[in-house]
């Protein structure tokens, strides 16, 4: 393809090709601190391309392709090419990853132990991970927890933190020296702005951690918390996994191991300050 950028995020290498320079230039600057794929062989390819040759120039629209694709994905305007690249990379992971059990969760680490936060869109996974990342925790990722079926440990996948709508302002205030990408307004997912994980998080991304606590946060309610029984944890995590079924027995073993060994709590929170206090208290009580 005309323009190419290769990068490694945690254990996963990507090659992104594009018909346009702009999305690649954005990736080069935002992922400047990341290494290239090992052995120069990426795990996955992502392609950003024009549906018809003239659509490179006339009302340019970015189609998302790659090794693994969903049928009938809608194109994005060229100004949102960075979002297209991120969606393409997430799609390869969601559909193609077979080494790790993928949980749709954000992960932060302290003292070699990992805290997983999972929930529906808007629950605050990315926001809480970004804020904790600026308060002494290591950010391991805001999208996928990579569980190694062999060891049970969680591998980091610290891609750009994707902040949506109100979360953008909250994190801009909460992480004053954070490095941010451009504001992408009016995307299909609303306004989006990316936060670059800090240098320490990138430098330590090859270090896995043992899962120590699973949280199911929920934003917009009075502060509350409860234990989550193993049966509920199991069902919610199967729903939060994109490749649980595809992994077969390995996936089942990896998931039941987590359910049996890692405590789980659900927390409701009215604002992020309250959430951080709740998280720190739960962590201290482990």
């Amino acid at each position, binding site marked *: *393809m005309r323009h190419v950028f290769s990068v490694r995020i945690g254990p996963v*290498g990507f*090659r992104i*090709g594009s018909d346009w320079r702009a999305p690649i230039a954005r990736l080069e600057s935002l992922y400047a601190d990341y290494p290239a*794929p*090992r*052995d*120069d*062989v*990426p*795990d996955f*390819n992502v*392609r950003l391309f024009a549906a018809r040759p003239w659509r490179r120039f006339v009302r340019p629209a970015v189609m998302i*392709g790659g*090794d693994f694709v969903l049928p009938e994905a809608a194109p994005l305007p060229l100004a949102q090419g960075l979002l297209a690249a991120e969606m393409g990379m997430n799609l390869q992971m969601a559909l193609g990853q*077979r*080494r790790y059990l993928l949980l749709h969760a954000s992960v932060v680490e302290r003292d070699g132990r990992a805290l997983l936060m999972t929930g529906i869109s808007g629950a605050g996974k990315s926001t809480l991970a970004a804020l904790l990342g600026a308060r002494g925790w290591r950010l391991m990722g805001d999208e996928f927890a990579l569980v190694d079926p062999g060891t049970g440990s969680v591998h980091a996948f610290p891609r750009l933190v994707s902040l949506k709508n109100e979360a953008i302002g909250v994190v801009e205030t909460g992480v004053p020296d954070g490095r941010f990408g451009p504001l992408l307004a009016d995307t299909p997912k609303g306004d989006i702005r990316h936060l670059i994980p800090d240098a320490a998080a990138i430098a330590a991304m090859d270090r896995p951690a043992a899962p120590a606590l699973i949280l199911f946060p929920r934003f917009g309610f009075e502060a509350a918390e409860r234990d989550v029984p193993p049966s509920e944890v199991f069902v919610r995590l199967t729903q939060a996994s994109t490749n649980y079924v*595809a*992994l*077969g027995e*390995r996936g089942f073993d990896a998931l039941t191991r987590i359910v049996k060994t890692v405590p789980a709590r659900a927390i409701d929170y009215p604002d992020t300050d309250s959430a951080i206090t709740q998280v720190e208290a739960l962590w201290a009580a482990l």
Partner: protein
Amino acid sequence: MGGAVKDGWLLARALRTPGNTLALDGEGWTALIAIARAEQMIGTLAFRLEGLPLPETVDRILADARASAEQGRIAALWEAEAARRALAPIGVPLVLLKGTAFVAARLRAGEGRSIGDLDILVARATLDAVEAALLEVGWEWVKPDPYDDAYFRQWMHELPPLIHRERDRMIDVHHTILPLTARITPDAAALLAASIEVAPGLFALSPSDMLVHAAAHLFADGDLAGGMRNLWDVHCLVEEFGTKGLEERAAHHGLAREVARALRLAVALYGDGATLNPADRLYLRRLTARDGWGRATRPVTRFGFYVRSHWLRMPPAMLARHLWIKWRKTSKG
């Protein structure tokens, strides 16, 4: 292996002589893996290259592909078992086709092979009973469109696809191996009569008929999509069973020309090379039309074979009517 080759030949040569891949650089491996994925042959490649001193990253990617193919094998055999149980009460034996048959019979063609739908063959006279038995235990219609449904029932060699509501897996119930509208009519009863029990309660076509089916599918039906994988099946079947009696069997089904072509192209891609005619070369050009990103290339050649596939499937007046109805449906959204 030359670093310049970045089309389907890169994959063909890796399968033919695995040791040659050791000369690949990062870019060469990246292209090979992308092409293998696009042709749904990454599992096959992974088994073929197992044990070689590969770069660590490549080794890991291929190990994942082997694990994935193994899981696919388990799921495909479980699906076959579910169909066997569904048809046992009405006394219809389960005759498997394509990928599931290869893994049930533990054939080389099944090693690492990606398997999508469950394809089975039943006698046309039992079709209604088979349909009812499958609906009874949880399979459902995929296509609610009345034209498509009627089209399948009147003209196709299979029922409209069914999907299982709990397992989310498709089954294609064939009663012969080519559409009824095609100019060639294979002997479906002979296919069933010669089928062999390859595992308890699971049957497969005889080796010769497997080769006939692969050739029919490639050259008398489809637009050659997935052709590299089909010809790998042919290559493996010939390697394992030879070609004794194949010519007569192919002639019996009216598919002598197609089978001969399949053998020539399989040897050209995966064997020691073959004497090719100009048409063979055009087929190979279509079959290997990929670039180093796994993208489909050579659009003119591809379109030519797409038109040809419809031409083979039905007479011209019927084709015109079919395309008109399909076009009106899509343009209405």
